[in-house]
């Protein structure tokens, strides 16, 4: 592989890893916020357990979302400085909004939510998870604004050798954005719903002691997955109005990924909407269905990656559609040695951490909602040391 292929591989691998965790964050954040709100209103132990259990899955998943995201943000400067030279005045604005406002608030309020248990007033604590949800969605929005600019460069003119921003509003109403953003959000909800479904099916299959807990989680998951896939599919088809002509004509990989995503997405929608939705009240008793539901859990993740492959590989050889090629966007002077070293470092470290994270999530699901670390009372599992010992 030459330097360009290596740099593209690095972005593709780290970006895909990042999105695997982001897509679940987008799905779980609103669910945890709703669970927390219900707990604050009802005070029921079941709602507290749901908030803490799914909240814990959410934050374990979030850890990898952060660390993979850091690598993404800095990669623009490391490998693709040609992009900021050519279009930084335009492309940089939504990225700055994402990091400076949306993610800044998301991270600050997530810290308050995780460590504010039993410290913050009840409703202030609930407000934190809602701000986290809102800013996560704002983050996704600004990232999609930036990405849509690459797909369809609007709102800017070419002046003095660079792209200059003339109409920010045009960036926000980009025809490549207005349907793809809801498509991504739908995919997030579908993924979040299916994780609730898969995890609950596993516990029910094992004849869990927490029957009420996982029955409720299964129902929430089925309803959410149904809403999610409806949104995903309708906005998925609507997107074709905004796709550049010839986008999927010259790339075998992009067209294959697109076809595979659409085909399997449709079958999944049939299963969810015609199979799971009508059975939502009784699915927890139907043991024959539980292994099927478990096997379905990874599918939304795979489809999400296929979607990004279609969108990003389909854009090749352009970094900015018909304006700037990826070859011209690559940092001048980037050598094969530099990119190989960083590629090996990032892929090895992030890949291993991703595996560890998934093992931890699987383990948290297997342990169930007893003895949760998130929101645990002080000294719940520590040997109590006398105050005078230090």
């Amino acid at each position: 592989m030459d330097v360009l292929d290596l740099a593209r591989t690095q972005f593709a691998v780290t970006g895909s890893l990042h999105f695997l965790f982001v897509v679940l964050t987008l799905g779980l954040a609103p669910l945890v916020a709703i669970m927390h709100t219900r707990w604050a209103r009802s005070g029921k132990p079941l709602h507290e357990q749901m908030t803490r259990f799914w909240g814990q899955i959410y934050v374990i998943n979030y850890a990898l979302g952060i660390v993979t995201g850091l690598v993404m943000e800095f990669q623009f400067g490391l490998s693709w400085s040609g992009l900021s030279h050519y279009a930084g005045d335009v492309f940089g604005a939504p990225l700055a909004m994402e990091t400076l406002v949306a993610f800044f608030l998301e991270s600050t309020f997530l810290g308050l939510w995780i460590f504010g248990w039993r410290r913050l007033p009840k409703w202030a604590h609930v407000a934190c998870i809602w701000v986290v949800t809102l800013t996560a969605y704002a983050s996704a929005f600004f990232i999609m604004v930036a990405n849509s600019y690459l797909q369809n460069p609007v709102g800017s003119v070419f002046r003095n050798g660079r792209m200059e921003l003339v109409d920010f509003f045009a960036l926000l109403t980009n025809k490549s954005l207005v349907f793809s953003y809801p498509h991504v959000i739908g995919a997030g909800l579908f993924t979040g719903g299916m994780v609730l479904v898969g995890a609950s099916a596993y516990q029910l299959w094992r004849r869990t002691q927490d029957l009420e807990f996982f029955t409720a989680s299964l129902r929430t998951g089925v309803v959410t997955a149904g809403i999610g896939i409806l949104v995903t599919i309708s906005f998925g088809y609507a997107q074709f109005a905004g796709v550049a002509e010839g986008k999927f004509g010259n790339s075998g990989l992009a067209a294959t990924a697109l076809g595979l995503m659409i085909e399997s997405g449709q079958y999944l929608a049939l299963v969810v909407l015609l199979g799971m939705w009508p059975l939502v009240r009784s699915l927890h008793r139907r043991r024959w269905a539980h292994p099927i539901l478990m096997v379905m859990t990874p599918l939304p993740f795979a489809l999400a990656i296929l979607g990004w492959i279609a969108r990003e590989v389909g854009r090749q050889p352009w970094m900015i559609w018909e304006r700037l090629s990826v070859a011209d966007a690559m940092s001048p002077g980037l050598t094969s040695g530099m990119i190989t070293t960083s590629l090996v470092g990032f892929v090895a470290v992030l890949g291993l951490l991703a595996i560890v994270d998934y093992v931890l999530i699987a383990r948290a699901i297997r342990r169930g909602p007893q003895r949760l670390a998130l929101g645990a009372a002080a000294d719940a599992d520590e040997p109590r040391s006398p105050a005078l010992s230090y």
Partner: protein
Amino acid sequence: MEILWFVVFAALLAGYFALEGFDLGVGLLLPVLGRTRENRDRMVAAMAPYVLANEVWLVAVAGTLFGVYPLLEGEVLFGLYPLVVAMLLSWVLRDAGLWFRRRLDGRRWRGFWDAMIAFGSLGLSFCWGMALFAAATGFESPAVHPLGVLLGVVVSGLFALHGWMFLAWRTPGVFGGTRSGRALLVSGMAAALPVVALLAGAMPYLLAHSAPASTLNVLSLMALPFAPVMVGAQVWVWRTFRPGKDAVRLPSFF
């Protein structure tokens, strides 16, 4: 407008050093003050509620760099290529250590991730010193320069001192000292001193390379209205987790 955004950029970068400086400092001190697992738990629990609110300042710095100084973003990050890669990997390992250390119960599991926190904090602190030196010399100096290494040692030392001051403020007496909030403020300013000096020197260059007015106007219109919320959220973090009874709650999530 260029001056306003320079102030924002400088405040974010200096704020990162003053705030994340003590998290990295506590990480550096883990092998020194945290000989027992209980002490390491207390040290991590002391900084845990601040980490997410502190490290995000650097994410905002990078975003601002892209939005306000697009011509410099590639130059700076690419000019520091090996350092930036090393810093990212250190940062990732430090964060992974914090998130993972308490997810399993085993002694070796927690010991391994505690080592990653210390190792990542050291790598990040040390490379910051080298990066400041490289930036001050306009990326012309060789990758490893004696003065850069010296600055790496200085920055790591300042962070360690700041981390110790933070522990003495938040957990009075537990790690051998009791310090006031004012002392913590002073050590924070000391931790930010090297980067403030660099920013002061680079000011004319940064101002000359700002994004055009149209971009800065959009950013001002979109970002500045949120400034009070962002400041308010940070203040809320400090009010919620201030020292006092129950300052270090165990078990902490990290």
